[in-house]
């Protein structure tokens, strides 16, 4: 459904962030994109959604294809109309709008009144807490509720693909689990495809159908969640624990890291 081929992104004409990144997102699946800070995960999502333009970034090489059509270079507001919706990192709700107004803005690109009304109810049934607070200013919601609102906004656009950037950021573990559970439910019930960017590899791999691991602007490893989870490197760097002696581990870490990066 979505494919990136050898994508290269440069910020401010000098900073090379993505160095020939390729990945595939098949229809109806949840694909996790994992990696440490600064690997280029968010940049990848912004390259897809077109929001890169607003940050002086540019796709300088490679092709981003969605449903068989090249979409790099198209303005972000039109990419939304084609069915890709990005839920930005840090939730980014419109704080001085009420919860309900935020949800209405999410459906801005659509004009079928009946469908919008139905989908608003659908959002409220996924996130009953939002319904209770629908007349409240969204700036006063808790972090978890704001994340729910950000996902609801995305649902309102009826996208074919949702780019979900770090939904776990700054949330309590219990809430994170709840939100991931709902993402999985949305994927199953609404058939929405997800490209999920996360630092919390454990949780992401628990709901994903496929995973990519990014390091330094390119993909270094990919595979089914089972395969990734059983990989020694992944265990060490992303899942925590490795079970070996500490001094020995540091040495290994160094060697492995080097093999990936070079």
């Amino acid at each position, binding site marked *: 459904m979505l494919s990136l081929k050898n994508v290269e992104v440069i910020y401010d004409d000098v900073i090379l962030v993505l160095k020939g990144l390729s990945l595939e997102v098949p229809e109806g699946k949840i694909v996790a994109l994992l990696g440490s800070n600064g690997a280029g995960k968010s940049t990848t999502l912004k390259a897809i959604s*077109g929001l890169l333009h607003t940050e002086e970034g540019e796709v300088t090489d490679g092709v981003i294809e969605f449903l068989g059509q090249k979409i790099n270079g198209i303005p972000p507001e039109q990419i939304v109309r084609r069915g890709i919706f990005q839920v*930005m990192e840090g939730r980014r709700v419109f704080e*001085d709008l009420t919860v309900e107004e935020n949800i209405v803005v999410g459906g801005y690109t659509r004009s079928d009144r009946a469908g919008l009304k139905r989908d608003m109810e659908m959002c409220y049934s996924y996130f009953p807490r939002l319904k209770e607070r629908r007349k409240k200013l969204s700036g006063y919601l808790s972090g978890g509720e704001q994340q729910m609102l950000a996902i609801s906004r995305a649902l309102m656009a009826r996208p074919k693909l949702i780019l979900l950037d770090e939904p776990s950021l700054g949330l309590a573990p219990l809430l994170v689990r709840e939100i991931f559970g709902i993402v999985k439910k949305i994927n199953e019930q609404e058939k929405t495809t997800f490209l999920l960017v996360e630092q919390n590899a454990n949780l992401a791999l628990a709901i994903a159908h496929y995973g990519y691991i990014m390091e330094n602007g390119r993909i270094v490893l990919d595979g089914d969640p089972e395969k990734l989870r059983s990989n020694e490197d992944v265990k060490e760097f992303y899942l925590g624990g490795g079970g070996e002696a500490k001094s020995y581990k540091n040495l290994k870490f160094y060697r492995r890291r080097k093999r990936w990066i070079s």
Partner: protein
Amino acid sequence: MEFFLQLVLSGLVVGSIYALVGLGFVIIYKSSSILNFAQGEFLMLGAYVCVAIFNATKVPFLAAFLLTLVFSALLGVTLERVLLRPMIGEPVISVIMLTLGLASVLKAVVQGIWGTDTQPYPEIFPTTPVRIGPLPVSQGYLYSVGSVLVLLALFSVFFKYSRAGIAMRATAFSQQVALSMGISVKRIFALSWSIAAVVSAVGGVLLGGVRGGVDGAFALFGLKVIPVVILGGLDSVAGAIVGGVIMGVLENLAGGYLDPLLGGGVKEVAPFVALVAILAVRPYGLFGKIKIERV
């Protein structure tokens, strides 16, 4: 007592026109965080264009008025396209400077075309005064206050309930997030500049009708409107209305009572004095939104 009521009444009329120009100001600020210092020139230009169309074509005044609104809407779209779009992504302060330049250019263009003499307005309101209680009130006053009220109500509803209105508020909060919702920020800007130009032109024509003519001094309304919107809160439609009315009445009362005592000039200063006093108590203005901070 009658003197007082007369002052209040004419203050209401001027105040309602302040409110209209303030509304234009607020709309632009709400969607793009830009202070438009050319707002008073929009008002003046609207007033000139209307009377020019009327004199040139001899169509009924109402038709000339409607054509003026079309002209203003196009003016707003053109300005956005030519002046503001290249400024997207530039610091807000640069754009504000640009509106100052625009104000000078518009003033010069108007003087170049119509000169500096007052252009007389035709009688657009019936001349027989209506009596409200003990007071004879000219119908022009009633018409202008009435139409201002209708417009303001319309826009309050527009911002609160219509999708375009909500999208405008969303854009004001963050252009990047608005883009990620599929909102065309350019179109929102064009829309807000058009609306601002149109409401100001309405104000200009009403003012021309009430005063019987238009001249370059109309542009000063742009300056007076700044205390109005800061008083009401830069981002509040209700604030523009209340601020406008308060300033209009205050200015007239100060002019009526204090000018004879102090030798004149108080009328012009009074709004700014009030502004300082109110901001000391409420820094966000009367209705301004308070920035939400999560800790």
